[in-house]
């Protein structure tokens, strides 16, 4: 079979000469059972290997597998490929594959005018219209008029292609996504080799299934080639990425690798205490597979136990991590406070989702910022690191470990559902270039002149206290959640000591700023009319919008915060150099409130709370609006 396929690699003779595109957005949509995530991932991986820059966004159905064919059961995967450096999975798809009426209904609203729409016409029948809550056949009511519609009998054609196999109809039907993929490979002139190889591996134990899938994909390719169904064919050339070895990675995988790297670079065993919750669970799943890296994953009875087990492991000298989403942070806040008080290093991971309460578990949001900063009783400062892209989750995770271990503080890693599930090419780092995090423990030599060990003696530079792990002779000491006397660590109700410790805990976090570098301004560092400022996952959309605005001749700069506590030291300075600051946030203006309060600078919030990311165009429009106002 492989030989058959290799005939059809993206370079072979097809009738239609491919039109060159620089940037394409494709969305695969179907029922949860239709394998859309797999289809999308395969197209992505092939494109990555062909050298495109890319960005993806899966859109899972909410929580429960709804009955086949219904609206809540729709699963989609969007991928954007380009021949230049891109930052988001794209605002609107150029191509939509809709495997059934429900998929059409939930996705057609986003398709670009005149976009390509591929329908599996076998599924367009009464029973499915009803499930999708269509009163009439959407193909007949004019609603698809503005698109280039290609109706294909995907189900029938797939069955026919597999007629000779031993498979039953159900198994045959499972291959129809590969038929669709074959069509898209043809349309974008891509090789099928990678997918063929992958199928071979994946179904190594079921060669008939592998063969059927490959056959279906070939059939899809041939269908296009032979019938000339499409009048066009496209090609997207490789992007000029920085030289290096790349892989495609999503945010949670990147973070998981970052934590393993933190563990390796510190020489500490990694301990993860976690309780499953969307969209953080995959961190637990992934780390559970790294036991041979001396990684212990502990699925606790709840979030409280998860962080508490991590605190215990931190006390014992592990690199301790706990992963969750907003509702879990609510439960962990008492434990986080204990870590603050006992000054133990650990990383608390929050993959944000739509809130409040259970909210929108599968949707993205940035609305837990003030929660992670302030959601604990008393004055309880914690550093916060926010990754800005899927691949950046790796670096941000290493950075969180670095801060925790060097400064003896619990640190927040603040990602979101969009980063967690989205993917992009990641240039593999060189292990030796990662920070060296070794050498953390106090030893029996760290006694005072009078032979006493002071568990709250402070490092002159960082104010960190020593990490004196049980088992070290001579360092026996007691810690706990009551206020501590500086130095001895004994319980203290002394008013002045409490004030001192409050300030020390704050100052210790503030001093993290000494090691994080300045905020970089992209555009005009000297200042100007408008600065677009962001944090976290809005980076892509902001960068796209600012770049376009600049291309359009507007003078706009941008800056992106990765450290949300403490802020880079030059932040106030940067803000003061711009007349206006625009801050898009997927909340109602949380960071803006903080920056306004801290710097008394009028920051304009652009808020979006819809469970989905900003589009480039939304931000562009806002920039244009603000620049016009400024021109009055």
């Amino acid at each position, binding site marked *: 079979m492989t030989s058959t396929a290799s005939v059809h690699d993206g370079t072979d003779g097809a009738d239609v000469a491919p039109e060159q595109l620089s940037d394409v957005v494709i969305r695969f949509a179907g029922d949860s059972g239709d394998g859309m995530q797999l289809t999308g991932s395969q197209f992505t991986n092939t494109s990555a290997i062909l050298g495109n820059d890319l960005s993806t966004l899966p859109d899972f159905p909410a929580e429960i597998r709804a009955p086949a064919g219904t609206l809540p059961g729709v699963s989609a995967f969007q991928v954007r490929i380009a021949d230049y450096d891109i930052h988001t999975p794209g605002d609107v798809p150029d191509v939509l594959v809709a495997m059934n009426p429900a998929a059409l209904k939930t996705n057609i609203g986003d398709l670009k005018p005149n976009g390509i729409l591929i329908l599996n016409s076998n599924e367009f029948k009464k029973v499915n219209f009803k499930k999708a809550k269509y009163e009439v056949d959407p193909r007949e009511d004019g609603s698809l008029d503005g698109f280039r519609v290609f109706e294909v009998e995907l189900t029938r054609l797939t069955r026919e292609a597999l007629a000779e196999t031993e498979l039953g109809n159900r198994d045959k039907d499972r291959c129809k996504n590969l038929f669709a993929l074959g069509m898209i490979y043809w349309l974008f002139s891509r090789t099928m080799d990678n997918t063929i190889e992958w199928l071979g591996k994946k179904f190594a134990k079921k060669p008939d299934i592998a063969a059927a899938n490959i056959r279906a994909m070939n059939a899809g390719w041939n269908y296009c080639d032979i019938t000339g169904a499409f009048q066009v064919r496209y090609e997207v050339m490789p992007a000029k990425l920085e030289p290096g*070895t790349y*892989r495609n990675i999503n945010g949670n995988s990147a973070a998981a690798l970052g934590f393993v790297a933190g563990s390796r670079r510190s020489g500490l065993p990694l301990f993860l205490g976690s309780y499953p919750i969307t969209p953080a669970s995959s961190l637990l799943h992934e780390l559970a597979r790294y036991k*041979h*890296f001396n990684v212990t994953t502990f699925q606790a009875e709840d979030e409280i136990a998860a962080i508490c087990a991590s*605190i*215990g492991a931190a006390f*014992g000298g592990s690199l301790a991590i706990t992963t969750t989403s907003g509702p879990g942070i609510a439960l962990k806040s008492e434990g986080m406070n*204990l870590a603050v008080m006992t000054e133990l290093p650990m990383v608390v991971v929050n993959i944000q989702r739509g809130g409040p309460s259970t909210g929108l578990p599968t949707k993205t949001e940035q609305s837990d910022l003030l929660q992670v900063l302030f959601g604990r009783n008393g004055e309880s400062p914690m550093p916060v690191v926010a990754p800005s892209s899927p691949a950046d989750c790796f670096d941000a995770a290493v950075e969180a470990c670095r801060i925790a271990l060097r400064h003896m503080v619990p640190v927040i890693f603040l990602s979101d559902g969009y980063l967690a599930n989205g993917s992009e090419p990641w240039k593999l780092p060189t292990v030796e270039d990662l920070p060296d995090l070794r050498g953390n423990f106090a030893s029996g030599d760290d006694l005072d002149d009078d032979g006493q060990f002071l568990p709250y003696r402070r490092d002159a530079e960082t104010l960190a206290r020593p990490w004196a792990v*049980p088992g070290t002779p001579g360092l026996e000491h007691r810690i706990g959640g009551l206020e501590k006397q500086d130095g001895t660590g004994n319980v203290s109700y002394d008013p002045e000591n409490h004030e001192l410790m409050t300030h020390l805990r704050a100052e210790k976090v503030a001093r993290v700023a000494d090691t994080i570098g300045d905020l970089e301004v992209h555009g005009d560092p000297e200042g100007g009319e408008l600065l677009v400022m962001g944090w976290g996952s809005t980076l892509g959309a902001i960068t796209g919008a600012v770049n376009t605005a600049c291309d359009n001749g507007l003078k706009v700069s941008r800056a992106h915060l990765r450290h949300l506590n403490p802020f880079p030291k030059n932040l106030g300075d940067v803000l003061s150099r711009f007349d206006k600051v625009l801050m898009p946030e997927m909340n109602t203006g949380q960071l803006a409130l903080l920056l306004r309060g801290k710097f008394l600078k009028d920051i304009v919030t652009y808020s979006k709370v819809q469970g989905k990311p900003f589009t480039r165009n939304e931000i562009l429009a806002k920039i244009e609006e603000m620049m016009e106002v400024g021109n009055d």
Partner: protein
Amino acid sequence: MTETATLTRKDFQSDQDVRWCPGCGDYAILKAVQSLLPELGIPKEKFVVVSGIGCSSRFPYYMDTFGFHTIHGRAPAIATGLKTSRPDLDVWVITGDGDSMSIGGNHLIHALRRNVGIKILMFNNRIYGLTKGQYSPTSEVGKRTSSTPVGSIDPPFNPLALTLGAGASFVARSVDIFQQHLVDTLRRAAEHRGSAFVEIYQNCNIFNDHAFAYMTDKANRESQAVYLEHGKPLVFNGGAQGIVLNGMRLEVKDLGNGLTEEDCLVWDETNPLLAQMATQLLPPEFPTPLGVLRAVEQPVFEQSVGAQIQNEIDRQGTGSLEELLSAGDTWKVG
């Protein structure tokens, strides 16, 4: 490790003033623990005492070991993380009836279910001491306290029944002032592989004085307590009385008149049903059972965790970070 032989009780006394109310039963328990630890042949720096919040939970401050006075109810979870990541340590949890059975109930039963190798000592004074005397989940029905001025209405937990129900591999009971029995019971706990749960009746002379006087008063000690010893018949009251199994029911019998020790139930700490029955020996009808209700060997959590890690290392080799980062489909640019 040879120097451990020379450890004494004094080595386990910290420099902190002990701040329980004079007369509090916690003093006796502190003494018992400080007496036991030097005997165990474990280097001092390997001991960690983890506690929650409550009068009892101030315990770690008075022990010159590593100690962690954590937050209310969470000590078993913190100790689980510590012991799982550091199986070499000897981890003791000190908790109160409120700390462990009220706010901390879930962590307690999960630690026991997992059989993490931690020793949990629950100081049961049947009251909230630290917050000044509210009733607790082990207070008897009708208890008048600051929060129940006309008496509590919820039936208490039976801590032994609850922990057995959770699948605990070691469950025992002792009493603050029965010093020798307490030390012996704690020694059994210390030697048990896996989780050990010890309920210790503890007098709070401020908010719940005489809670256990029915048994601890000199006059009643013999008649109101029965000591469970593996392989020995259940005889008490100086040999005058015994406990007999009649069908599925335990009965108290006066010995003599042809009834001897031989007729009494022989205690078997591995029999789950007997343990269940013992939890139902309640005063005044029955003497209170003291000692080890249940002790069985079961897989120990942190050892299984370690074994899985070792297995994977054996199977896959120690992970290489370079390989991990570059796993999956990669491609080169430039």
